[in-house]
C-alpha cells in the first residue's frame, strides 16, 4: 500500500532532480526534458508556462507518475516515485494526485455525482459516505441539484466544475491542472481560476497548473517558465508585485 506522506515543511511537495525524458520510438525518439530540476511547494498555486511543445505536458505526466523518467528522480511529498512499482505508482497516484484535464474526460454514462464519486470508489470507500461527499462537493461548487444530471445535460462550465470536484474528491496532496482555461473565454476562465484557487489551495497541498494563458497569471503564487525542456525562469508573488 502506498502511504500518504506528510512532508517536513522544508521539503518541497514536488522535487524533480535531473529529469530526462525521451518520447517516440527508435529513430523518431527525441529528448523532451533535458535534465530538469524543479521544486514545487505546498500551500501555493504554481503555474507552469511556456510555448507549445516545450515539454510542459510531458513534465506533469512524469510528475503524476503517468510517464516514467528515463533518468533523474521525482519525489512527491518525500516519496521517491522510482521506488514504487508500476502498480504502486498507480495506487499512489489514486491516493495523492488529483487531475483536472483540458478535455475533462468525464464519463458520459455516469451522472455528475457518480463522476465525482469515482476516485473514492476506486479507493474502496464506503458507498454511503462517498455519496454524501460527492453531494457536498457539488453543492460547494454551486452544483446543488445537478448530481443526477449526465455530463451531456450540463454546460461546459458546469462540466468543468464537476471535473474539479472529481479532482479534489479524495482530498489529494497534489492537484495538477492541464490547461484548465484553454477552451474558455476570459470571464469564464477567470471564474474557473478563482474557483480552483478557492477550493484547492491549502497549506498541505500543492497545486500545479499548466497553461499558456497570460490572462490567468495573476492567480499564481509562483510561475515557472519552461522552454525547450528546461526551466528558464521562476517568478514568485513578491517578484510579480515588485514588477
Amino acid at each position, binding site marked *: 500500500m502506498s502511504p500518504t506522506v506528510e512532508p517536513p515543511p522544508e521539503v518541497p511537495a514536488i522535487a524533480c532532480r535531473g529529469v530526462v525524458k525521451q518520447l517516440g520510438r527508435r529513430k523518431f525518439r527525441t529528448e523532451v526534458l533535458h535534465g530538469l530540476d524543479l521544486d514545487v511547494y505546498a500551500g501555493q498555486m504554481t503555474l507552469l508556462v511556456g510555448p507549445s511543445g516545450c515539454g510542459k505536458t510531458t513534465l506533469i505526466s512524469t510528475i503524476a507518475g503517468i510517464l516514467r523518467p528515463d533518468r533523474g528522480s521525482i519525489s512527491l511529498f518525500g516519496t521517491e516515485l522510482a521506488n514504487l512499482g*508500476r502498480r504502486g505508482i498507480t*495506487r499512489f*497516484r489514486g491516493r495523492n494526485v488529483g487531475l483536472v484535464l483540458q478535455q475533462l474526460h468525464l464519463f458520459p*454514462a*455516469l451522472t455528475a455525482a457518480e463522476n465525482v464519486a469515482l476516485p473514492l470508489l476506486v479507493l474502496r470507500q464506503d458507498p454511503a459516505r462517498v455519496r454524501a461527499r460527492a453531494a457536498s462537493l457539488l453543492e460547494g461548487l454551486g452544483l446543488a441539484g445537478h448530481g443526477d444530471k449526465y455530463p451531456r445535460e450540463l454546460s461546459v462550465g458546469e462540466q468543468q466544475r464537476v471535473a474539479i470536484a*472529481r479532482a479534489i474528491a479524495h482530498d489529494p496532496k497534489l492537484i495538477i491542472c*492541464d490547461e484548465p482555461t484553454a477552451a474558455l473565454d476570459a470571464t469564464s476562465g477567470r471564474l474557473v481560476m478563482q474557483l480552483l484557487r478557492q477550493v484547492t489551495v491549502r497549506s498541505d497541498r500543492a497545486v500545479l497548473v499548466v497553461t499558456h494563458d497570460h490572462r490567468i497569471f495573476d492567480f499564481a503564487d509562483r510561475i515557472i517558465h519552461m522552454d525547450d525542456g528546461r526551466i528558464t525562469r521562476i517568478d514568485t508573488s513578491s517578484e510579480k508585485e515588485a514588477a
Partner: protein
Amino acid sequence: MLSIVIKMLFGERVKVLGLVFGVAFATLLVAQQAGLFVGLMTRSQNVIAEATDVDIWVMDPSVEYLDLVRPMRDTELYRVRGVPGVAWAVPLFKSATSVKTAEGRTKSALLLGVDDASLTGVSPRILLGSILDLRRPDAIAIDRVGYMQLWPGEPLMLGKTLDLNDRRAVVTVITDAAPAFSAQVIIHTRYSQAIAFVPTGRNQLSFILAKATAEFDAASVARAISARTGLNAFTAEEFSSRTIRYYLKNTGIPISFATTILLGMVVGSAIVGLTFNMFVTDNLPQYAMLKVIGVTSGRLIGLVLLQATIVGLMGYAIGIGLAALFFEYAATPTSALRGFNLPWWIASGVGATIALLIVLSTLTSLGRVLFAQPAMVFWGKR
C-alpha cells in the same frame, strides 16, 4: 464500483445490443444444431432403446448396426437359448416396407415382428387398445404419428385397415413409439404375422433379443454367445453405440451439422469479437482515465471481464431460451421433430463454448486495455 462499471457498459446501448445479439445468435445456432444432431443420432437407435427388457442383441456376424439386417436361420435362436447365463431369448423380425390406406395414401414403414408368446419388443407406451390385441388375426400396432400421417385429421380409432404388401392389416393397438431414423410409420406385430406380411427368403430371423440371468452380467453373456455360436452379440448399450458410430462414420450427417455449428461459432465470435473490440477501442480514453485515477491494470482487466461476462450471460440466456422455445414448439409429440430436445448437457456444453468464445474475444481486446497509456488523457489517442 461494480455498479459504475455496469452503467458504463449499458451507457453504450447500441454496442451492448450488438454484443448481446452476437452471443445470442451463436448460442441459438450452436444449441439448436447440436440438439437436432443429437436427436437424429438418438433416433438411429430408438428401436434398441424401446426394447427395455432386453440385455443382449444377437445378430449375423456381418451385421454392424441396427438398420443393416442379414437374416439368420431360426435354429440360431435355440443355440442362443442354450448358452449358459441366458435367461430367455426371443426372435425379432425387422424390415422396411410400405403401407397404403384405403384412400390410397402410401407411407414408408418400419415393420417389427416380435415374439408371438411374450410380445417382447413392442413399444411400452400404448395409447389405445391392449398389447394382447396383437394376438388377433392380421393385428398390428401403429404409432400415433404414423396414424396421423395415414389418416390426417381423423381421431385415433382402432379397427382401421391398411394394405401391407397386398395383405390386410388391422390396427388393434396405437402406440407412442419413439420415432425411427427414416421410416414415417412404425408397426409392431407378431413375428409370425410379420413374416406373412413381408415376403422373405429362406431365413427370416433378423435379431435375437436375450436377457441375462441375474447371476451373470450382460457383457459376459454376450461374449459367451459370440464364442458359442459365432454370431455377433452385444449388450443393448454396445449395440446402440455401434449404431450411432456407424452413422457418424459413414454418413455426411456429422460433417453437415459440424459445419453449421462451426459457422455459428465463427459468425458469432466475429460479431462478438469485432463489437467488443470496437467497444474497448471507443472506451480506451475512459480506461486510461480509470488508470489515471488509480485503477491498477489487474483491476481494470477484472472490470472489462465483468463487462464481458454480463454481456455473455445476457446473450447466452436469450440464445438458449430461444433454442429451448424452438424445441418446445417445433418438436411437439406429433411433429416430424418429435423426440428432439435440448438436453442439459448440450446447454452446458454450449455455455462452456460461448464462455470460451467470449474469453477469446475479450483477450484480443484486453491487450489494448492493458497497454492503454494513461498519458492518452493528455494527448488523446496515441
